[in-house]
């Protein structure tokens, strides 16, 4: 059982990074179980690699083949019906999207930013709309097909934010963000989690007083990639357990495309995306 105090998480991501989707979904699923306060920070992966060099974000072909294969495996294990987009748009082509998300972060609430991020990820990895096409942004106006109604932004609001995203201010902020994460957190790729542990508070105060004046969090660590969630749980403390892609540990019992003997249920992608749709 996680303590009442929230764990602050900075989630540094880019829509173009497939593993960012997986880690994003994981953080949303564990939000209640670990009492997370997620601060979404959309960045330009292109901008990061311009500073740090190609390295991890641009591997040799044999490594790329493995990473793509591993992504397919992880998508199935996480119960997500997602595939790498055909044609593999380069991170540079998503710069407008990064500006839009950064503008959203400034003017809208974190909930709206979360919803829009989910919709963009789905549009990019499930529906496979090209990110340079204007139709890509219809998802935040119309919402998810399952919700059959208004998306998080109205058409007029979308136009306002689109205009703001094209301004020089947002461009400057995006560049500043990239410089900050690289110099402060030594980020070199996405997805990048910065977790601020709940500090030990042994002051002689009552519970309410401690919650009103919390100790400043100075202890933080970085976690890169989708395979560090158990290490994140180890860092946060013994009350935080990593149970796999689902916090109730049900990944072992989900039906699989591989058709292992003894599992009578057929693989049904529609059913597996239901918990994601419930968040929208």
């Amino acid at each position, binding site marked *: 059982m996680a303590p009442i105090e929230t764990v602050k998480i900075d989630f540094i991501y880019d829509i173009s990074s497939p593993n960012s989707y997986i880690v994003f979904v994981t953080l949303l699923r564990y939000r209640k179980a670990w009492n997370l306060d997620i601060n979404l920070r959309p960045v330009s992966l292109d901008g990061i690699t311009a500073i740090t*060099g190609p*390295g991890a974000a641009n*591997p*040799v072909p044999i490594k790329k083949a493995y990473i793509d294969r591993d992504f397919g495996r992880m998508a199935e294990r996480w119960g997500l019906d997602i595939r790498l987009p055909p044609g593999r748009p380069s991170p540079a082509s998503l710069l407008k999207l990064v500006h839009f998300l950064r503008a959203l972060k400034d003017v809208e609430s974190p909930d709206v930013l979360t919803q829009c991020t989910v919709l963009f990820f789905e549009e990019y990895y499930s529906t496979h709309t090209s990110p340079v096409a204007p139709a890509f942004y219809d998802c935040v106006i119309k919402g998810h097909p399952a919700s059959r109604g208004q998306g998080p932004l109205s058409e007029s609001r979308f136009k306002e934010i689109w205009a703001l995203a094209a301004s020089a201010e947002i461009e400057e902020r995006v560049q500043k963000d990239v410089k900050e994460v690289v110099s402060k957190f*030594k980020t070199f790729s996405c997805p990048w989690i910065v977790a601020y542990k709940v500090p030990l508070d042994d002051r002689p105060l009552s519970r309410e007083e401690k919650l009103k004046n919390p100790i400043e969090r100075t202890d933080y660590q*970085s976690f890169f990639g989708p395979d560090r969630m158990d290490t994140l749980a180890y*860092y946060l403390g013994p009350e935080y357990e990593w149970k*796999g892609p689902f916090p109730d540990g049900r990944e*072992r019992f989900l039906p699989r495309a591989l058709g292992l003997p003894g599992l009578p249920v057929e693989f049904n992608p529609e059913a597996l995306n239901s918990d994601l749709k419930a968040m929208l």
Partner: protein
Amino acid sequence: MAPLQKAHVKLLYDISSPYSYFAFATLLRYKEAWNLDVDLFPIFLGGVMVYTENTPPSLRPMEVPYIILDKGRISDQYSVDIRSPPGHPMDTTSLNLIRFLRAVREEEGQEILAECTRLIFEEFYAVQTDYRTEQFWECLVPTLTKENLARIRQLSQTTRHKEGIKEDVKNAVENYGMFGAPWMVATRASDGKVDVFFGADKFDAMGWWLGPEYVWRGPYPDGQNPYPIATPRHSGIVARL
């Protein structure tokens, strides 16, 4: 409850890679619990890097701070001491160690190979004896007798093993798509399918892939938290190997 059928896992590892040490230790801890048939295979990572034109993260300076942080905390989490000796990895090469382990694998078999690997890893990372000295090899006595040790060391410098290492690198890259260590090739018991897993952090994914009866419970199969290496002692926690 260990699974009834045996699954086969081949671990390709190198002494120079601390993540190989994590994978080696964890795999042997889970050998009984997952009823695994483990095939340890020493391979020369430097050769793999050259053959695939890949670069290890230690040669990418912007990634080094994260790697240092990550190694330390995984060392704590998995209770494996990888405090690296001075000059590692830039000034060290594991070529002779891999030749030796390859000879041990052929001459002595898997059990002795596992023990020799463990001793060499400990001597290299924890005790930090210089691997170029004669004193380094004394750690393998009495697992191997002094005569046997000298014999296998001589054998490892023959053409058979020197060329064999290059063959191994070529086979691993072409058959398994290997580009780094640790590299695990797992064969599922239920349908005989084969898949590859790169890194010491893929055990829970491998457990999921092998089947629902392969449960990952963290660094130890009984779910216990290990004794941290780098952080200070807490009273009441007993060290485990």
